[in-house]
Structures are given as C-alpha cells and as structure tokens.
C-alpha cells in the first residue's frame, strides 16, 4: 500500500513540477547576488544570505531559509491535501476503499508518502543550494563560519546542515498534518489547501503582533527558523527542542483528528 502511494506520488508530473518551481527562487536569488554582488547586511533578509558571498558553503541553508516562510509550506500543503480530498475529487477514493484499501491503512500510506515528499523536497533544495554555493560563490572548503563568529570544521558544518534539513522536515510535517486533516474534511483539494494556508498565514501574522505574545509559543510557525540555532557555537538547543516538541504535539493531535474523521465519514464523492 505504501509502495503504491509512493509510486502514485512520484510518477505524477505535478510532483516534480512543484519541486522544480520551488527551486527556482533560490536559483534566481543566487544569480542576482553573483551579478550585483549586493548581499543583504547581516541581520537583514533571510538568514545566512548575508554570509554566502564570502562563503558559498552556507548556501544550502540560505536556500532553505528562502523557501521556508512561504514556498515550501505551500508546496507541502498542496501535495498533502491531495491525499484524501484529491482522491475524492477524482472519484478514485471510492474505488480504493471498495478495493478494499482499508481507511486506516490508506491514511497511513498517504502520510508516509507525504513525509517522503517533504524529505525529498527539502533534500533537493539543499542539494541545489550546495551546487549553487559551490559553482557561483567562493566556497571555503576548510572551515565555515558559525553565526556566533567562531569557525566550524567541515565535519561540523556538514553534520549541522543535515540536522537543519531534519529540523525543517519536521516543521513541514506539521504543515502536512494540518493539510491532511483539512483534506479529510472536504472533497475539494482547493478548499483544504486554502484552509491549511490560512492557518499558516494567521500564525505568521500573530507572531509579529505584540498583543498575541501570550499564545506566541504555541503558534505552529513560531520555531520554524530555529534551525539557525544549529549554527551557533555551541548549538543553542532551547528553541530547537521546543520547536520539535510543538510540531510533535500538532502532528499527533491533527493526525488523530484526521483518523477519527476519515474512518467514520460517509464517502459520497
């Protein structure tokens, strides 16, 4: 069942088109930076971007930071809502369930496929960023610079980059959980995508509002950019662990709700 879902997802032209579009932005940014040589000053613009002109080895992280606020969640939400609502709209859901695929099994297989998509997408962004960083910029193979100003060895840099990729993947699983839940509520993938995006936009907006500070620690997007803390010396774990715990709670609760809803609902699509 899981193999079937993975095959469906990755044989679909739309999946690869989404990943391609997602990578377009970091490529455009890199090209512009090289041509103009105008990096944002430290503390402005997406994290890491100010440093890439001096060290291209940081570009994978800059690329992730560029797509993280908007592009990546949109892509993840668009793919995740297809899980149930997309099948419902195409009419294939009734045939899958009458096959019988089993509702819980189907949901688990869809979830695994979405997580695989998130992982592949984040990895592709990182790899494209790596290639860009090493071809367009001066990569310093010996040592990267940490945000705190100290030097990191190549191993440290590599290890922390992978930790960041993992962290971003977990954050995106939170988005996927919202999208999956909404997709069990409706037969319209568009409606479910908008629902998931509304949550994210609301969360980002509330995060900037001082009056919302009491609920800020619980906003789903609150700790998304905390992967920057992997590049402090030593690693600042406080926000990272909070971010992981928060996403864990969101994923757990939303998946339970999605399961409860999907296994008891009438499939009339």
């Amino acid at each position, binding site marked *: *069942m899981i193999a079937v879902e993975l095959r469906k997802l990755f044989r679909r032209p739309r999946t690869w088109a989404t990943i391609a579009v997602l990578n377009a932005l970091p490529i455009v940014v890199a090209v512009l930076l090289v041509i103009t040589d105008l990096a944002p000053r430290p503390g402005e613009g997406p994290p890491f971007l100010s440093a890439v002109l001096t060290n291209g080895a940081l570009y994978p992280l800059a690329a992730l930071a560029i797509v993280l606020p908007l592009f990546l969640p949109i892509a993840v939400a668009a793919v995740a809502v297809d899980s149930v609502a997309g099948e419902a709209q195409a009419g*294939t859901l009734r045939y899958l369930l009458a096959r019988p695929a089993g509702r819980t099994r*189907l949901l688990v297989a869809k979830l695994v496929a979405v997580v695989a998509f998130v992982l592949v997408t984040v990895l592709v962004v990182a790899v494209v960023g790596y290639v860009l960083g090493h071809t367009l910029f001066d990569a310093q193979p010996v040592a990267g610079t940490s945000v705190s100003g100290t030097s990191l060895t190549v191993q440290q840099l590599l290890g922390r980059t992978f930790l960041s990729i993992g962290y971003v993947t977990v954050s995106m699983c939170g988005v996927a959980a919202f999208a999956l839940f909404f997709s069990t509520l409706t037969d319209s993938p568009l409606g479910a995508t908008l629902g998931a995006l509304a949550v994210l936009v609301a969360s980002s907006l509330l995060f900037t509002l001082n009056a919302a500070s009491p609920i800020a620690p619980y906003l789903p997007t609150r700790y998304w950019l905390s992967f920057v803390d992997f590049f402090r010396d030593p690693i600042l774990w406080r926000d990272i662990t909070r971010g992981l715990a928060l996403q864990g709670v969101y994923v757990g609760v939303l998946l339970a709700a999605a399961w409860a809803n999907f296994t008891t609902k009438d*499939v*009339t699509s």
Partner: protein
Amino acid sequence: MSAVIVTRGLVKRYGRLRAVDGIDLDVREGDVYCFLGANGSGKTTTVRMLLGLVLPTSGEVELLGGRMPRAGRRVLPRVGALIEGPAHYGHLSGRENLALLDASGPGGRRRTRRTRIAEVLEQVGLAGVGRRPVKAYSLGMRQRLGLAGALLRRPELLVLDEPTNGLDPQGIAEIRELLLELHRGGTTIFLSSHLLAEVEQMATRVGVLDRGRLVLQEQLTALTAPTGRTVVHTPVPERVRATLDGRVQAVDGQRVLVKGDDPAEVNALLVQAGVPVSGLALERPTLEEVVLAAAGSSTDRVEARGSVR
C-alpha cells in the same frame, strides 16, 4: 442457494431526509438482480452502504456472509464494483491504473497481475489500447476500463451502478453479452439502473426502490407472468366481439383484449368464423408497467409545499 446480499431494516438518514428507509434486500447466489428506481430514490446510497463507503444510520448489511463494514477486508476482495461511473488517474495508462488498483488491497496476487490485467482488458474490448493515458480515453472507453477494474480478481459478486452509462448501442449490447457470459460462469450480478429496457433483457430478479423504500422485490418471470388474457390485433374488432361473445374485455382501436390464456384456441375460433387476424399474443405486463405501477412519480420533481401528491 445461499444469500449473497442481505440487508435488514437498512436506514440512512441525512438530517431529516430518509434517503434509504428500512429496506430488506435479498440477493441470492446466481441472481442477476436488477435494482431499479428513479433518480434520487436511494439506489446509489444503498450501493455505497453495501460496499461500506456510507455507514448506515441503522440496520445491517451482510455481504457474502460477512457483516459490513467490519468484514470488508475479508469479503470485498471477492466483490467487483463499478460505483457511479468510472474514476481513474488521468495521467497514467489504463494498464497502470489497473495495476495500482490491484496493488492497493488484499487478494490480488502480484505474480498473476499482468496476465489478469491482459485478460480483463481483452474481455472488455480494450486489449489494443496500449500506453495511452486515460485522460485521452472516450467516455465509453473509461466505462470499459472501470468494468475491467471490477473484473480483475474474478469476483463472485459484481455490484454495478449504471454500467452501460456513456456507451453506444453496440457497446451496450457487447457489455450485456459479457455480463450474461459471466453470469453463466457463476457470477452473481447486482445491477442498479434506471434503464428498464436494458434490465428486462438480463434480470432474473428485480427490486424496485421508491423514495428510499423497497416497494417491490420479485422474480422477473413472476412479475411479467401472463395475465390470462390474449391480445388480438384485427382490422375488424366488432366482428371479434360478435364471434367471441362475452369474452372480449376491452377494445382499443385495432387491439382487442380477449379472456383466455391459449392464443391458439382463440385463433381457431376466429379463423373458423372467418375473422381476419393480423396479430395474436398472450398478454404480459412489461417491466415498465410493473415498475410504474409500483413506484410513484419521479423524485426529480420538486413539488410546491403543501401540494397534494
């Protein structure tokens, strides 16, 4: 003969509307059971409850001896279904669609998959369709592919909702032939339709649904049994009346209804008297007459509130 589909007091309520209102279906092994009803009479909701897609408000469904929806994993692999038109992944080929469907549930052995797919495509007349994506198929081809999906695991029971939708007359005849052949091979067929003429040529049993209630469930032969009257076509109805004094029950133009269930005997009397007869047959009610008598008006009609029906 064992029961293949049994429902007891099956009810589905949507808010105040009772879409299905306490029906007791009884489909036996070897039946071609035709499930008739106007649009909106609850056919599709019933079919979906049989397959565990819609959960009943009350009542129970037994499918191949298992309580649905709990027994779905055990019994559904032995059921082939076409539910409210076919649905496929448009960007994949027909073959690929069938392979994915087969792989997404139990009971479809991987080793035999390719041969089974080739066989069913041959059966439904799509053997030469090649690698074309389904989005390039015509409506009739999609319908055939949907049927192929239903046949993929040689099911004991076929549940088909409007299987000839979108097919041209040749296609309809072809699919009917295929279904009758499967039936001869021992497959029980549950066919939901509102095309009475089509049904009459296949059914062994008929159930009629009207506004969520099962108003009729009977063998087709019993429903269309002779009425004990003979229909005589003649250019001179008044001479028939004179000859068969007292036995003529109705005259409608050149059509005369005569009491008596032996057309030969009626014919002999008329020929002896020199009455010209252009046609002679036992009177049988058509399925259409039976169904219309059992069911009310079309449920597409929305009457004004308070109007008397």
